């Protein structure tokens, strides 16, 4: 049952990800600290890695975030870090729910 919610959440994440392309959304608050956002994403990624379930695009998003920040594109950098954090949190949720629900996938 939880697996279905995870699946739904991931679907929403993919849809949300489509809207998180750099420089499209200018709504990010300039008062948000990149350092804090990046650190939160790193922490979430570390938790996902500890669960042995990291999504393949997450680390790349963090790298792109750092590059964007180095190039002075602060809003893009924060959006990318937030996207990485969201992916890492969903991966961790997936790992935790599957630890319990994997038997639902056994057909026989």
């Amino acid at each position, binding site marked *: 049952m939880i697996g279905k919610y*995870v699946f739904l959440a991931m679907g929403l994440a993919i849809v949300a990800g489509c809207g998180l392309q750099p420089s499209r959304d200018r709504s990010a608050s300039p008062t948000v600290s990149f350092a804090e956002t990046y650190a939160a994403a790193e922490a979430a990624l570390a938790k996902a890695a500890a669960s042995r379930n990291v999504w393949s695009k997450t680390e790349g998003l963090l790298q792109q975030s750092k590059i964007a920040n180095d190039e002075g594109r602060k809003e893009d950098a924060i959006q990318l870090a937030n996207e990485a954090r969201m992916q890492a949190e969903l991966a961790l949720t*997936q*790992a935790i729910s599957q630890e319990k629900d994997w*038997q639902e*996938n056994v*057909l026989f």
Partner: protein
Amino acid sequence: MKKSILSLCLIGGIFSVLPAVAGPEEDRLAMVKYYSDRFPDVPMQEFANGLYAFDQSAREQWIEMEDFPPYEIAIDDGQVLFETPFANGKSYADCFDNGGIGVKQDYPYFDADAGEVVTLELAINQCREANGEKALAYMIGELAEIAAYMAYTSRGNEFAIQVPLDSPGAVAAYSAGKQFFYTRRGQLNFACSSCHIQSAGLNLRADRLSTTLGQATHWPVYRSKWGEIGTIQKRFAECNSQVWAKPLEAQSVEYRNLEYFLSYISNGLELNGPASRR
């Protein structure tokens, strides 16, 4: 009398809330039945040939390719590597039963002393390190070539993977491999079983998905898309990538347990490695 009835009720109640967990042989037999029902015209041994068991067009191309098999060079190179003594004068033959010839059907096995699954590739590197040599990279290259030669000498032998039920470690490793197989992962939220059980035989883009039964019999494999020979764990990593999950390390505990599970499921099928695939 009342106490006996109460006890029975309690025992019944306990068992009714426990999940039904099948043992290795029950799993294998259920898998055999599932695929036999799904592909009634496919002889059992044919499942060792992957999608070529039921895709006639792909099969014809594969048979043509087998006239000059692309893995042949790897077998030859692997034999040279296998027979070349280490610096201390010993060789791979000193590390394996029967001098390492025709032994692949017994790998992976559970090493009770070490408390872990030992794959053939891990055993090759353990042999090297025990003789003062550096370990080789696991997915491609010389180690895959040595494994290809050893697989070649084992062709025709039936997979005979052991999961001793009186070994809690072995059963736990097998169960962990089974859990990995059925666990959804990656951004696409797929389990191994999503493709290779639920969708086996169906098209995924231009290819039809192979069955779990027979999936471990033919490694290492020369894949045309790789342009080289690679181990089964290279394929695990690739499968994980395809569902947008970051692959685990080659010979990680998880991948070795998965290989243990998959190999057991193919017990009784004849080994046919190395093989070629698209």
